[in-house]
């Protein structure tokens, strides 16, 4: 049994993206259980500078193809090279990060190989399926996150899935392993390069959920962009990052980068304060693993109270200013 993991780097830092390490570890756990191998597949202009981490997180062997022309996402070239790699390696399963690169390329590869691709999986496990032998069971939220569907691809290989960053976890400590890298032979055809990248600008994203130990989030109940300042004020008082539900983003209260949920970031802070958030499945999918959840909402029946540890049934516009006042007192 073999699992391939699409390895992606952040082009700005030339370092591995977290999701690639998370998938490596997931693949390692799956293959460890079934005595299989984990192969990394990398396509790009040059290897990330921290490539050795892949091996610590469970990749057994990295197959890489580098070409200076592939510093940008030339989707068609990526498709051809990855398809050739997959045909050579013959993995049973292929995992992609559900990033803007993975979600661009994985559907092309699946289409070219006429196989199944399941997007945004939140759980993956290997088990028997009827006469198909061992397959990958892919659990994903569907229907705007209102249901959990288990998807199977019984008759096609490879079975392909995408997984969002932050969904799978990394171990406290990786393995002690040496890199094993092989170079894949391919030639970039001129017709594979059809886009011209005129310029790229690093996004000034002020949001950093991964390192934030506390996140204060606002939802539809905040009511306006003006009121959303209260969320920033509370976050400031706590030294926290600011998040938002999809509704708050859709209403234009706050920028999309702050969205937490099934479509948005998946976060796992030590403290999560949800203000004016009803707690739809869509939102909970992105925050319910937070260590401590505090909910402030006017509706006592809001689902957010079902997963909260502490709460106040009340209007966040009245509660937050008082909270800030007492927080300052506590700090002194």
């Amino acid at each position: 049994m073999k699992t391939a993991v699409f390895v992606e780097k952040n082009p700005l830092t030339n370092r591995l993206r977290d999701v690639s390490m998370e998938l490596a570890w997931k693949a390692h756990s799956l293959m460890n259980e079934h005595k299989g191998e984990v192969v990394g597949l990398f396509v790009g202009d040059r290897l990330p500078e921290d490539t050795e981490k892949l091996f610590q997180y469970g990749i057994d062997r990295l197959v890489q193809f580098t070409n200076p022309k592939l510093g940008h996402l030339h989707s068609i070239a990526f498709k051809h090279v990855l398809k050739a790699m997959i045909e050579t390696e013959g993995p049973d399963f292929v995992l992609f990060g559900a990033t803007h690169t993975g979600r661009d390329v994985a559907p092309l590869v699946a289409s070219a190989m006429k196989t199944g691709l399941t997007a945004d999986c939140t759980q993956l496990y290997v088990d028997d399926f009827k006469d198909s032998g061992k397959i990958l069971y892919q659990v994903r939220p569907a229907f705007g996150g209102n249901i959990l569907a288990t998807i199977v691809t019984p008759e096609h290989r490879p079975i392909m899935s995408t997984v969002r960053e932050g969904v799978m976890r990394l171990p406290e400590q990786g393995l002690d392993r040496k890199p094993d890298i092989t170079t894949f032979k391919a030639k970039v055809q001129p017709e594979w390069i059809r886009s011209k990248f005129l310029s790229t600008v690093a996004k000034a994203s002020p949001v950093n959920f991964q390192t934030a130990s506390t996140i204060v989030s606002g939802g539809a109940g905040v009511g306006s962009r003006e009121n959303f300042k209260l969320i920033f004020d509370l976050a400031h008082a706590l030294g926290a990052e600011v998040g938002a539900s999809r509704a708050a983003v859709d209403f234009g209260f706050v920028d999309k980068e702050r969205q937490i949920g099934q479509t948005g970031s998946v976060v796992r802070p030590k403290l999560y304060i949800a203000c004016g958030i009803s707690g739809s499945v869509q939102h909970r999918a992105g925050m319910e693993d937070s260590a401590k959840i505090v909910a402030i909402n006017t509706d006592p029946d809001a689902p957010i109270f079902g997963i909260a540890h502490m709460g106040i049934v009340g209007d966040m516009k009245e509660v937050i200013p008082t909270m800030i006042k007492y927080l300052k007192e506590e700090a002194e």
Partner: protein
Amino acid sequence: MKKIVVLAKQVPDTANVTGDAMKPDGTVNRAALPAIFNPEDLNALEMGLSIGEKLGFEVHVVTMGPPKAVEILKHSLYMGADNVWLISDRRFAAADTLATSYVLAEAVKKLGDVQLVLAGRQAIDGDTAQVGPQVAEKIDFNQVTYVTELKEVDVDHVVLERDGETRSETIRTGFPVLLTVTAEANTPRFPNAARMLQFFRAGLESDFDEESLKIARENGWVVPTWTLDDMGLDPERCGLSGSPTKVHKIKSITLKGTDLQLFNRDKTGIQEMVRNIVKDYVEVER
């Protein structure tokens, strides 16, 4: 005439799921949800219409779905689409993205002389973002996904801004190309009043009786439907049989219980909660 094709989908309004939306057995009661034009497909249509106006290309909207999906095609006509097509057949049911993209790709080929295909980044019911790229692959178009801005249009190329997640990318590409468009890209226009008057009676052939059908045809009110046979498709590649992925199991999400500690919303209650937070917070920070 050169064509732009916009791929659109009618979706249940998953953002407004109510209590009736789930059946007691945990499956989704689609009938209880309002059906809407997939929001980002409206952005794709807006981009299609504005490019069509600049270049003099015809704008065609194609949707695969049940007869009810004609509603979004009428809306497309109100917004300014030149032609709309419903692709509908019972044998298309339960299609995953591979089977769906096969049918849509064949529709694009059947229309002929298509320079540009546009689709929303993703549909709000499946959230997969896969159908657009899989159509591009089948018709051998270049693709740019996550388009956030149309910066320049000319007869032989477009310049786009793409959300590359860590960076934004300015990309120039010639035709043919398929773009998937995000909500940031534009503000979809409102339906045009004159066109609403012109097309409010539009519908499927089956919506008209013999007499009115003649009038409907003369007025361009009949939305054409293509079936599997009309398109000469391989039934093995359509619907459930053409879908490698199968739904094995569905369960509705239930809340995990926690020991919720509620505080009063008065000053004392808030103060008490803040103390608890600070205590927890300090503990976890230590």
